[in-house]
């Protein structure tokens, strides 16, 4: 049973430390790749990526990996994928676009617990997401689909910087060890200490707080209703929806929208006791 709850500063106390190690298995079906990724000790997720192959240039071009933002899914990159494949200038450059769904988004599972594992969906962190993406890149490499370019949007940009930081801490990097030649950060969330107005001003907290829900199984999570979701992401400085905004029905039927763990809401918006951005 869901109930809307007020944010409490005590919520962060339940957050636990975890390791960065990963193990995984692979299963392939149609155009979806599912990787079993170890997020933390005894905690796994099935991370599902959708592979779209360029019909006019199926081999010989680069593979592009996309990483979605807060409250989004990999499905949101469908229009961009088609734009690439239809572009006279770039369609002969890209053979595959792989859109990852972060844990708990789209077809990807939330936390899967083995004996001794403890983690609710609402406690998934940006570090868990970074592990999911890094491991996805490794698995794609094993399938001859190593991405040379990563396109990351909004929170996905933060995921990529956290991933790079984690690799560097192990004397690795996206470029040298995983072969990623270019990372494109679209309207990305900035890591601290780089400025991030939405968080630093408190506006982000005000935006997210009304949409925090509680569930006995999932824990605390952020559920943005469709009209608000469209308003956040498709309106201009004057509050007008721009041409090309999907209808509410399209946003739902195309699977654009996802709930988000409360932990991510804290991380991005600096809600009380949430000043723990990387």
């Amino acid at each position: 049973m869901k109930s809307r709850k007020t944010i409490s500063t005590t919520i962060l106390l339940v957050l636990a430390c975890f390791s960065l190690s990963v193990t995984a298995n692979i299963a392939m079906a149609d155009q979806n790749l599912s990787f079993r990724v170890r997020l933390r000790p005894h905690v796994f997720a099935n991370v599902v990526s959708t592979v779209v192959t360029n019909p006019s240039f199926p081999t010989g071009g680069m593979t592009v990996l996309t990483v979605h933002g807060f409250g989004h899914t990999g499905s949101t990159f469908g229009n961009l994928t088609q734009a690439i494949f239809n572009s006279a200038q770039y369609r002969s450059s890209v053979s595959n676009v792989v859109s990852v769904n972060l844990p708990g988004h789209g077809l990807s599972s939330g936390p899967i617990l083995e004996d001794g594992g403890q983690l609710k969906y609402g406690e998934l962190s940006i570090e868990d997401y970074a592990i999911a993406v890094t491991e996805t890149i490794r698995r794609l490499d094993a399938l001859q689909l190593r991405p040379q370019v990563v396109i990351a949007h909004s929170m996905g940009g933060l995921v990529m910087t956290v991933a790079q930081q984690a690799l560097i801490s192990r004397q690795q990097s996206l470029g040298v060890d995983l072969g990623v030649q270019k990372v494109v950060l679209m309207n990305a969330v900035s890591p601290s200490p780089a400025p991030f107005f939405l968080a630093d001003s408190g506006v982000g907290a005000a935006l997210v707080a009304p949409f925090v829900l509680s569930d006995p199984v999932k824990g605390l999570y952020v559920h943005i209703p469709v009209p608000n979701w469209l308003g956040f992401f498709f309106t201009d400085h004057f509050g007008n929806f721009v041409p090309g905004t999907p209808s509410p029905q399209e946003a739902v039927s195309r699977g654009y929208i996802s709930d988000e763990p409360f932990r991510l809401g804290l991380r991005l918006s600096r809600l009380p006791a949430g000043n723990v951005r990387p």
Partner: protein
Amino acid sequence: MSEGIFLPSLHTSVVVVSTEQDILTVPSELQALYTFLTEDEDLSGFRFISGADAVHDTYISNPNALLDAIFGTNHDGGAA
């Protein structure tokens, strides 16, 4: 987060894209992000997309507006 985690020596170039009408991020902070990550004060990998329809999710509503920013020549001279 450490500064310079995308220095050229690490072999991953970075492009940071900012859109004019985004209500969630602002160009100045994305410029700062680019410099923070790359230590490139010339902002050669920063791309500003102007336009009345350049919102946070332009990659959905008008993806063609982003293709040059994504795939165009980067500051290191590499097209990819």
